[in-house]
């Protein structure tokens, strides 16, 4: 018989405090029963017989006396089976699509465990997204974690949706493909947008959605990505599927973490975020990857909005230190009418170097990408100069760079939401653009490749 505790000492924000509890287990789940409602919570701190519990649904409506709390002795676990495909759950993995519970004999701890680096398989297979700036310059690799750094009002959802739609088609093992979608604090219409995109792309039966909307309880937001990643690990490593995990919006997740941290009166570090923000984010992001003994993979595309478009804000900053690169969206490009507004210069794919070239995409890919990067970065310098002295005063070469910059944005970066360019088309386009420049400027490409691919 489980012991039920009938008295709380304190209820404040997301936390309740209880005294005289015996044998509490760190991180265990507690059931909170109150008249007409059940809530769930988690033990976050134990001091002698005093226990601090974080209530997922918040403490609003809880009275100190009219409540019954029982301890389960176990961390949070969720049941998983193949039946989760096509289903919609709330932030703590309770089905909300009216199609009933998931029944499984197997329960999985949502905290996961760190992958043994020895067990990992280094990701090398590229994923064609059909978006030129990503495929050509920030190549996505299967098993990678590649976030989209965006800002409020920028089309990050469209970019993510386009990746989901187009990445599937190029996959030979289409039957082995699944999408896990974790929404944290996003708006209703954003969630609907994704649902519609999945339906239109005909992938709905391969999507698992975990939805915590902006008006849902804040503490659940901390649980949502963990449930989603546990489901992803199950699909990837037990069902051998290639799983694409979209997590949006990481910034709201971090704000939820901050809210709880301040309720617990912890020492804050930068901008009030807790000192363990890095470790906490890593415990999500590091769950991407591949294993030697498994055919599946987890590729993560977390989306975060940079407050005030500031890339040095703690959320994008710490994310960038953990993830394997980033896709950065840029407001001024978007205002110029360029979709997708990907600014390639601060963007980066760390795993790209090992997943492109002769054996994967095409032999000229590494050099030509390198050249386009450095040319476009030169364009920025020349534009700054042109602003001061006027474009007419530029040298001939510099004028060509200006033209390169314009065409790069208009023809290469800009692309229709429905347009799916394959990797060869993207690479050829890069050569076409480089042909604008004098040939001596192509110092980063092997001369033999220039000879082979450059068409003046």
């Amino acid at each position, binding site marked *: 018989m489980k012991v039920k505790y009938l008295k709380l000492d304190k209820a404040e924000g997301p936390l309740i405090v209880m005294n005289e509890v*015996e*044998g*509490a*287990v*760190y*991180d265990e789940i507690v059931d909170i029963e109150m008249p007409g409602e059940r809530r769930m919570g988690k033990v976050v*701190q*134990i*001091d*002698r017989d005093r226990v601090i519990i974080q209530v997922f649904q918040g403490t609003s409506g809880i009275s100190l006396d009219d409540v019954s709390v029982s301890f389960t002795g176990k*961390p949070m676990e969720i049941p998983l089976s193949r039946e989760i495909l096509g289903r919609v759950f709330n932030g703590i993995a309770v089905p909300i699509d009216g199609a009933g519970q998931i029944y499984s004999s197997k329960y999985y701890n949502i905290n996961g465990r*760190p*992958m043994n*680096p*020895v*067990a*990992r398989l*280094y990701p090398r297979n590229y994923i064609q997204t059909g978006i030129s700036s990503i495929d050509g310059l920030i190549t996505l690799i299967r098993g990678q974690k590649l976030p989209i750094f965006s800002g409020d009002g920028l089309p990050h959802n469209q970019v993510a949706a386009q990746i989901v739609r187009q990445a599937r088609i190029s996959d030979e093992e289409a039957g082995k493909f699944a999408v896990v979608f974790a929404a944290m604090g996003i708006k209703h219409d954003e969630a609907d947008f994704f649902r519609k995109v999945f339906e239109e792309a005909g992938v709905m039966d391969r999507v698992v959605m975990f939805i915590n909307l902006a008006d849902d309880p804040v503490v659940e937001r901390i649980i949502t990505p963990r449930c989603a990643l546990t489901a992803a690990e199950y699909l990837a*490593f037990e069902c051998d599927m290639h799983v694409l995990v979209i997590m949006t919006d990481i910034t709201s997740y971090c704000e939820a973490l901050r809210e709880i941290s301040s309720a617990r009166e*912890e*020492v*804050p*570090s930068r901008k009030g975020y*807790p*000192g*363990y923000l*890095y*470790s906490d984010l*890593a*415990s999500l992001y*590091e*769950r991407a*990857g591949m294993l030697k*003994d*498994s055919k599946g993979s987890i590729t993560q595309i977390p989306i975060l909005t940079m407050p005030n478009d500031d890339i*040095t804000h*703690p959320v994008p*900053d*710490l994310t960038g*230190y*953990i993830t*394997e*690169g980033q896709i950065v969206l840029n407001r001024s490009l978007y205002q110029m009418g360029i979709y997708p507004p990907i600014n390639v*210069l*601060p963007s980066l794919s760390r*795993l790209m*170097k090992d997943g492109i070239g002769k054996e994967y995409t095409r032999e000229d890919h590494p050099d030509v990408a*390198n050249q386009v*990067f*450095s040319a476009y*970065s030169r364009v920025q310098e020349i534009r*700054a*100069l042109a602003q*001061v*002295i006027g474009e007419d005063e530029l*040298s001939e070469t510099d004028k060509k760079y200006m033209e390169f910059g314009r065409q790069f944005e208009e023809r290469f970066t800009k692309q229709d939401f429905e347009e799916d360019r394959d990797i060869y088309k993207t690479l050829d386009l890069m050569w076409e653009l480089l042909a604008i420049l004098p040939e*001596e400027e192509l*110092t980063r490409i*092997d*001369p033999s490749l220039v000879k082979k691919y450059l068409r003046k």
Partner: protein
Amino acid sequence: MANQGKIININGPVVKAVNMEGFMVREMVMVGKKKLIGEIISLEKDLGTIQVYEETSGLRMGEEVEGTGMPLSVKLGPGIIGNIFDGIERPLSKIYDSGHKFIPEGIGLISIDESKKWDVQILAKPGDMLDSGDVFAVVQETSMVAHKIMVPPGIKGRVTEVAESGSYNIHETLAVLENEGKKHELKMYQEWPVRKPRPVARRMPIEKLLVTGQRVIDTFFPLAKGGTAAIPGGFGTGKTITQHQLAKWSDADIIVYIGCGERGNEMTEVLEDFPKLKDPRTGNPLMDRTVLIANTSNMPVAAREASIYTGITIAEYFRDMGYNVAIMADSTSRWAEALREIAGRLEEMPAEEGYPAYLASRLAAFYERAGYVKNLNGTEGSITVIGAVSPAGGDFSEPVTQSTKRIVGAFLALDRELAYARHFPSINWLSSYSGYVPMLGDWFKENVAPDMMALRVKMLRILQEENKLMDIVKLVGEDVLPDDQRVILEISRIIKMGYLQQNAYHPQDSYVPLSRQYQMLKVIERLYDRAYSCVKKGIPLSKIKDEKLFSDIIMMKYNASDEKPGLFQELTERIDRYYDGLESMYKEGAADES
């Protein structure tokens, strides 16, 4: 009966227990039913505060804490090289072999392989007097490392018994020493507490270059054997690639690579690449001299704090054998953040940005374990510490970067602007420095060329000059500058593209021996001298800048190889021919006019 405490408080990786009277500070303990490994950080009456090196989720109030009677220590002996360990020296490959794709808690204290038999060659004879640090046996551990078995510090005596050379595991006794009636059994391994530096006879001056094969480092900001260096840079600036390049190519005998709070895939990459890569000097696989310590960013944070001590203790052990060891810590910022996280849980008073006040002194204590030393056994060895720093927001004014900068001898600042332009390694030549230049002058003179240091200064001056000119160019454009200044811009472009940029993935360019670095500099110098003197003679820059010649000089880094030793000679001759021709043409022209 060992001491037993009782858990009364759990807060993340920090656990408090009562009944802790017989314990000591820094003692290693086993926490709870799962026997999680922990270390006591403070004691107050019967209350002990413990940091736990494993995930504490699932720990129950009232569970026991068991003492081990010794401080957090590592086992040092054959089986370390080529292996990958977690932050407290538990072998990850062995954990994987026992079926753990994900790292579980409570795997206990395992370390180097205890059953493996090693071929031991015994060097000591009965009757020998052995002192601390003396080598009494040797094991060829890998193709590159002869593992010298030493008498542990603090022990000495006359050899009374020795085993025959042959095959032994690390627990078998190889020799017995007797000193003042006390017997010491010597085995193949010794244990050492990680937080205590191993003793040396004395420190020696730093005067040897750590050759890295990276042009911008060797030529402009050289590292020294026994020195310290920091590599700060925001994300995406290439810290890890730079660290990997140093681990691959530097001419140390042993590399200890600590992945401290970084990505799991990066450790996997090292594990996949290093066995395939060949050491440029011996041709043996690089893994045969490398030790990896991995505490990836999602592994327990307390073990991150311990990982750099584990790493440096292993480094000191190999130094004691007379090896030059280089230790890479990627990244020390994560270590500092681990300190901060634990300090926060202990409710210590925070100093700058929430870091504890002892951050600077802990960092200093770590970097001070580097050095070029005379060992107890009379050999010379060194430890070079190269720490990556990941400043928040790429802002070098934050406490970890600043505290590190005060201590280290070389500072290789990675620059985000350069990285965006794909200029790699993105080491900023204006803000970086190496304090070892004066100490290495003689070494360069003897081992490279007498004028190497002069060349270095000349090139740096050109780059400095260019920086000043760029301020003007940014305002008014390049065309308005006089030709003698524009030639500086052109030559700087060659230095930047043809020399400073180095492609880590290009077979010819990944590692460049010093002799080739020198020759490349000489070619650039010749071009500069000739071009500059032409400008002074009034020849227009458009004639001086021969596109083909300039671009061939930029590309010389890819074309140079040991098979084509004549390349630099050929380029020099081409420069001379071109400018001789140009000068004589203009001399004639001038003569005609007059």
